């Protein structure tokens, strides 16, 4: 999959992606109003200041919903099938789409909505190709 970025976006995307490559998960934070923001924005959507930086994200979240791709995928994800994506809600009132690790059975049947999920990094190669946080069931 193409990792091409839009013009001028590197300053915003690179710190986020670089953290994922290191196995860490960060969220954007506005120092002016002390709120977390996801996905990262150009101006704070709450106070419209641009005093924005990245801060370590909570590693535990709540699964709002998820979907398991079994047949058909966007181009570039064919070799990933089957795979699951979920909407994760974190403390600090942020939410985002993430990949979900398979459960102990190798499927996603043990995931429950409103249940707890934890950040568990994928390897650097995967993050270089598809920079997005991965969450799994608590150990």
């Amino acid at each position: 999959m193409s990792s091409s970025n839009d013009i001028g976006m590197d300053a915003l995307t690179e710190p986020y992606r670089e953290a994922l490559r290191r196995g860490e998960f960060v969220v954007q934070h506005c120092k002016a109003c002390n709120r977390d923001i996801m996905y990262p924005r150009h101006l704070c959507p709450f106070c419209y200041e641009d005093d924005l930086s990245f801060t370590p994200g909570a590693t535990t979240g709540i699964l709002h919903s998820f979907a398991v791709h079994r047949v058909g995928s966007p181009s570039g994800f064919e070799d990933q099938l089957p795979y699951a994506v979920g909407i994760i809600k974190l403390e600090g009132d942020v939410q985002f789409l993430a990949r979900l690790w398979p459960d102990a059975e190798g499927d996603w049947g043990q995931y429950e909505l409103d249940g707890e999920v934890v950040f568990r990094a994928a390897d650097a190669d995967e993050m270089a190709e598809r920079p997005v946080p991965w969450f799994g069931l608590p150990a």
Partner: protein
Amino acid sequence: MSDTEPVFIGFGEQPSGRYPNRPFMGDLVRVGAAAVKDADLTMGEIDTILLIPCLHSPADQADLVFSRVVEELGLNKKVKAQYMVHSGGSTSDNTIRTAAGLIESGQAKNVLVLQAEKWGSAPVKEMIDMLTANGIPREWEKQSGVSFNAVGALIQQRYMHESGSTPADMASVCVALRDWANLNPNAMYKDKKLTVEQVLGSKMVTDPIRAFECPMLADGACALVLTSRGNARKLGKDRVVRIAGEGGCVSHYSIGQEREVGKLGWEIAGPAAYEAAGWGPEDADIAEIYDSYAAVLTSGIEGLGLAPKGEAARMFARGEFSPGGRLPTNTNGGLLSAGHTGVGGGTALLTEGVRQLLGRAGPERQVEGATRAVCGGSGGTYMDSQVLLLEGVSA
């Protein structure tokens, strides 16, 4: 009601499905000519054309923007303005708002709304990739691999969790729409039956959505004509359709940012519309609400007060929204069974609402005495919830 009040006075439609021999521009001018004739107008009396976008081809989209339709319809130097409104699947609602404002303010006299799409004949993989590229933040969330079916699946998973609806309940939504499509000669699935067993027996595509719960991309075309009520009377129209109320809510861009994916923005969109109309959901005779996946429709029905919270899918299973049911819903078969004509899926539902309220849906499908319709549209990743309350009245 005032003479300047905007009303629908005509419509045109081409059958939805796979029609590779029907060119895009041909469909547009044919539905346009049919709608103008249906309105008892001549083409030269159209002074404003509002265009609903197509998604199958940037070249055809550019033709729309740069007034090719005006030229193809022989309206050079006759039309005052032609332009496009675009908000994906809710475009028809926003286009009608625009048309209504132009007519009410006197900026337009007779407005022709035109839509055509060639999704059914375009390369499926390309169309799916395009859909996937739209409405998903490409710097942040596209990397999750979320597909368009998955957007529907995220909504359906949450809806089922909150409502306790079973896979069979959700399948019954698709079956009800198929039963309606079987009565609609313009529907893609006009002559193919569907059962709950067939839906549940089809392969899992994106849990919890199965193959027969996904909309099929279709070609299709619709046109609508609006004018002022005073003008409609002069034209000798006895029955017209007025816009009794409208409301809306833009709830998100990315589905990952929707706080309540099982609900979307319907609860916010509805109240203002009902208040303006002076009637409520209990007074509706029919509903025509965006339905590209079952839970998109059930969340709309519930959010607009047409079913108690969490009950819509079970009510589908009991046949309450089917032909002969308590509240006939998506009487053309909806996107799921009339065909997903891109942005046009919402236009087709709206056209069906107008058709029903004019009493012109034919002996098999016409809902007897239908005078009040709740119409809803939603665009992108169900980014908005738009509602138009329509009323059939004498001119």
